[in-house]
């Protein structure tokens, strides 16, 4: 009975957590602090999605871009996936020991509008910040730029000009 109760409690908590915000379905998004831990342990870069409850352009991105099976596979393989609800009071603990909320993280990273997508090194330092709706091809291009290490040598637009899809 205790096991059943625990499972029901866990299921309730997981569901409750899932309805706090609206990341794309089927992706293994985790909170920011958990993502930092996973990235530092695995050495994978972080794909950080700043969304907002009810955000139209997040909705469009989810429906038109993140629904692509190939993109889902590519990003699930290449990144630790982090979702932040830009209006949430959900608490995060940074590696420095500082505690802040998801909304405060948005203020700290100067996130204006949603969606905003950030690519981060495994230690959390930013590589690239791209705001607004992006297509499947855009996300593929960003992935080529990040995973190929081109960001160390050139700007995104230079890379895309030299290496069209």
């Amino acid at each position, binding site marked *: 009975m205790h096991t059943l109760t625990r499972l029901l409690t866990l299921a*309730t908590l997981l569901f409750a957590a899932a309805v706090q915000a609206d990341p794309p379905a089927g992706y293994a998004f985790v909170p920011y602090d958990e993502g930092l831990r996973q990235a530092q342990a695995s050495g994978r870069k972080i794909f950080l999605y700043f969304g907002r*409850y*009810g955000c*139209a352009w997040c909705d*469009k991105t989810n429906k038109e871009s993140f629904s692509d099976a190939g993109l889902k596979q590519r990003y699930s393989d290449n990144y630790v996936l982090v979702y932040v609800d830009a209006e949430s*009071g959900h608490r995060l603990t940074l590696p420095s*020991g500082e*505690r*802040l909320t998801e909304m405060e993280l948005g203020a700290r990273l100067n996130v*204006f509008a949603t969606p905003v997508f950030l690519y981060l090194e495994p230690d959390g330092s930013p590589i690239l910040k791209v705001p607004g709706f992006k297509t499947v091809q855009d996300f593929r291009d960003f992935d080529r730029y990040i995973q190929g290490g081109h960001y160390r040598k050139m700007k995104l637009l230079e890379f895309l000009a030299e290496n069209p899809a």
Partner: protein
Amino acid sequence: MRMLAAGLLGLALTLPAQAEWVFADFEAASGEPQAKLFPHLESAGRGNLAASGDRLAVVWEDNRDGSPQVYAALRRIDQPGFAAPLRLSTGREAYEPVIVGLGAGRFLAAFEQDGQVVARVFSAAAQGVLAPLDQTVSAQVTLAAGNGRLHAAWGRRDGRFLRLVSAPLTVDGTKVSVGTARAVDVSPAQDEQLYASLTATARGYAIAWEDRRAGHTRLLTATSRDGAQWSAPQPLNEIPRQSSAAELGLGRGPGVTRVSLASDGATVAAVWMDKRDFLSGYDIYAGVSTDHGASFGANEKAQDAFGAETPQWHPAVAVTPHGVVAAWDDPRDDSPDIWLSTRRGEKEWSDDFSVDGAAGPGSQDNPVLLWHDGRLHLAWVHKGAEGAQVRYAQARWE
């Protein structure tokens, strides 16, 4: 020409000077900054300041004891110098404290501790026993004191959602007792109700909160004479003309969040972060009621155009005889500073103004405001190379 100059000089000397907020008593409230010490002035409704008798108190959360805990600092209203912080929380972790004055230097603080909202009476000399306000998972408590009564509202976990409830409180000496908690909105919980702000009016109470039942966040308000029964929720924020994305069936509405209320009895002022102009992030909007919160006038943009290109955060509000005052932080000068604006007359807000001691090097953010007995009290979080601390100043209209 000489006569004209002399005339103009004479006119200037005879005209009364334009009154303004004059700040003084800048000081730290939370003690010396330390490396890896992170104070937070976070709470539902930004209710972290209160006055009682000749004392002023500010409450915050920080990690000085190795985990997030709630602290208070007191000073005499008319004498600089906060006493050493008092720890109010007793559990593993505590967050989002709010405070009201009880008179004669006594205060009631409420906060979240280990997943439940609790309250405690304290003064410079003594602390009462910590009293749970709810037996279930709960958070985001807000307090109001007025007309000899006390009331609290908070979010109570109801299935998948936080649902807003309110209850009367009584204080006997240092003992806090809580009455029956009832849902503010009696319709079934359909989604989250978050970050409420409660204020006492001459006719009872007004409350505002974030409500997600519409598929996006709306700000709703309600009033109550006794805190037991609340009026039907009324929308506070206006929804602008549908965007092209919404017309395509995408999303539901613009972002609004973190509403704060203040009242002087009849006037109730609300401020909040509003992303209806989403390209520059949140702006500070306001709504003002002159009927005890029963209805609010049209939404007003509290900030001026000079902050249009930067996002605004953490709005707080006070109702004063010299107009409604809004405070917030924004990085228009490259790093976050505290900015204020005063509403003078019908829908007319002053130019934004900063305060020398709350702007400049480092970061100044998370303001809280209180109007009490002829003074405007302001606290905020300062972050610099030496660390972070809660700072304070007070102003007179001169």
